[in-house]
């Protein structure tokens, strides 16, 4: 009897599974343009995925409603004027930070949800597979994140990237360093890097090595480390022994925090301390307090940098979500706006038309909240040249001053004065 009950259970389970899979809520509303978004809404990077989502939601709100005080495209109107006021609706999918899942989810968005374009993605590996699927189905994919240089080197026609890739990030650091050397008449020839050894860090490292070679610096230590390692004493000791002038630390939140603590323990203070990624996380400063002061970050964004439209959007965000706009929010913020603007300009939701319109996108400085002269894309080219890379993307150099992020470079965007050199531990 017991086993019969069990087989009923199993049969019922299988039956339920098949029945439910038939049921799919799919009602369409008039005058709605569906755009798909894939983000890591669960898994390790879920908090960042949630922030991305906030950025996208805010942008969609600006598109769909009147915001006359903003100079962004489509802010003045409700919805898309050239399409009868049609509104944008985002269909979210969870890619779990797993490229396999990203592939399946983007395909599902395109085939089942019938979205006309895809935005988003956070992890470069997910954007890689997501955009490949989008290319297969001739659907435009615009990502605001994804710093891996490879992404735009694949010669894809339907993929567009807004973000300045790690090549540009590195370039900004070294431009800044070179600027300081000129200003102070000093040479900071010895550099070192500690990078987390998954995709993000290793791509960054490649760009770092290229800059070092081209500009004639000397890399005295190159230390890959296990992402989210529980202890970094070996790493710090190796770095301290190499005694660099400028030190780059590339890793996620836990790495940034751990490195900071360990560097304090071992009293290791480079003249210049560049940090990336983890240092921009909202968790970093609360976790290390004053220990983070003086760190320089090549940032894609800062909520208070001196561009009027950025500051206004920053206020809007702060009012709605009760916190300051952070990088993950900002990065994907422009993606729906860029696509909606293209759709509006094309006057059609046909995917080919959208793609063509995107290629001709030309947003000016005031039409983007990101630093730089605006947004426009390079044409499709054969690898290794970049296709559809945002040529207007520019980096900021941000410094943590008194437990706050302040922009210190370029001059026209700065919010505070630079502190130089990096303060000693005893001074913090």
């Amino acid at each position, binding site marked *: 009897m017991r086993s019969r009950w069990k087989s009923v259970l199993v049969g019922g389970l299988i039956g339920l599974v098949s029945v439910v899979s038939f049921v799919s809520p799919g009602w369409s509303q008039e005058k709605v343009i569906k755009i798909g978004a894939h983000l890591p809404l669960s*898994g390790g990077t*879920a908090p960042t995925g949630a922030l991305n989502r906030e950025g996208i939601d805010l942008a969609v709100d600006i598109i769909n409603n009147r915001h006359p005080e903003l100079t962004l495209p489509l802010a003045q109107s409700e919805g898309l004027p050239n399409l009868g006021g049609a509104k944008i609706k985002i269909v979210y999918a969870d890619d779990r930070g797993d490229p396999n899942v990203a592939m399946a989810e983007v395909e599902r968005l395109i085939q089942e949800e019938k979205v006309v374009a895809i935005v988003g993605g956070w992890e470069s590996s997910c954007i890689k597979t997501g955009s490949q699927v989008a290319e297969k189905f001739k659907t435009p994919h615009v990502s605001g994140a994804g710093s891996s240089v490879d992404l735009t080197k694949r010669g894809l026609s339907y993929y567009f990237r807004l973000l300045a890739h790690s090549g540009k990030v590195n370039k900004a650091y070294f431009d800044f360093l070179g600027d300081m050397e000129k200003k102070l008449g000093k040479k900071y020839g010895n550099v070192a890097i500690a990078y987390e050894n998954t995709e993000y860090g290793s791509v960054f490292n490649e760009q770092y090595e290229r800059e070092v070679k081209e500009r004639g610096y000397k890399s005295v230590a190159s230390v890959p480390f296990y992402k*989210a390692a529980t202890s970094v*004493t*070996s790493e710090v000791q190796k770095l301290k022994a190499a005694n660099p002038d400028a030190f780059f630390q590339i890793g996620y939140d836990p790495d940034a925090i751990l490195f900071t603590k360990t560097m304090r323990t071992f009293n290791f203070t480079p003249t210049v301390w560049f940090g990336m990624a983890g240092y921009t996380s909202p968790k970093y400063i*609360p*976790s290390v307090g004053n220990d983070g002061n003086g760190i320089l970050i090549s940032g894609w964004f800062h909520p208070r940098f001196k561009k009027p439209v950025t500051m206004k959007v920053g206020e809007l965000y702060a009012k709605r979500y009760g916190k300051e706009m952070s990088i993950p929010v900002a990065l994907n913020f422009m993606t729906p706006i860029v696509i909606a603007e293209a759709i509006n300009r094309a006057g059609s939701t046909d995917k080919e038309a959208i793609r063509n319109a995107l290629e001709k996108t030309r947003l000016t400085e005031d039409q983007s909240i990101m630093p730089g002269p605006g947004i426009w894309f390079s044409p499709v080219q054969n690898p290794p040249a970049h296709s559809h890379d945002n040529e207007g993307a520019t980096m900021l150099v941000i410094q943590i001053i008194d437990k706050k992020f302040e922009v210190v470079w370029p001059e026209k965007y700065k919010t505070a004065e630079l502190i130089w050199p990096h303060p000693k531990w005893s001074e913090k």
Partner: protein
Amino acid sequence: METAILILQLIVDGLLVGLPYALIAIGLTLIWGVMDIINFAHGEFLVVGMYVGYWTYALLGVSPVLSLPVAILLLGALGWVTYRYAIARVLKSENLLSQIVVTFGVSVFLQNLFLFLFSGDYRSISQEPWIKGDLMIQGIFLSIPELVISMISLLIILLMHLFIRRTNTGKAIVATALDRETAQLMGIDTDRMNSLTFTIGIGCLGVAGVLLPITTHVSPYSGFLFGVLAFTIVALGGFGSIIGTMFAGIMVGLVQSFGGFLVAPAYKYLCVFILYLLILGIRPRGLFGW
């Protein structure tokens, strides 16, 4: 002189990281020795302790040192429940596969429970009120929290050793581990011994877990690394031998420290695992096993 200091520094690093590892492994070695079952959820139980330490700090502002007893009790209870409702029955069924898989199931369950409750964020205790600061002694740097944790670990390890060797209950546990049937013949309630061992084993994790967020970070995924390191230590030190486990833990810490510096930090855990595979090739019973 420079090299001597460097070597001393690496040794100190190894000790500071190895002693907590050893404490984590103690519970595992007992469970394994007595019940012949690998607790694959060991790392995840540790993470429970870590979250306890973190959340009592984050929500109540209480130092982990104060929440230590709470953690020990909580984890002990958790261990007892897990044993009673999952492990005991599986042991009876004598199905090897189930014995291995059930703790794995617990591990996957716990890991995703953390993910669900606390999200994937990495958290650590940033401003511990009582234990903080750094020391520099004769050119050797160390952080006070790490020192404190290592001392506490050492203390608990020695206590456990005394418990096993000197008390009657401890001896009963050893007896059960050595020869279950004879122990039963001698009147020892082996099921109770199992339950006790599991409870104590997990309880130890409470100590290690609650203090760790001071020096490192906790996330739903932290369990994996600690877990695998613990398995390695137990296998190296021999199952059931507490002192053996302690030395193995220190050894692993040293390998990590030296390997990380001499070879490359990215390979520091790799060195540990390769060492493990090598030793197992030579002496499958571990170095000090029963």
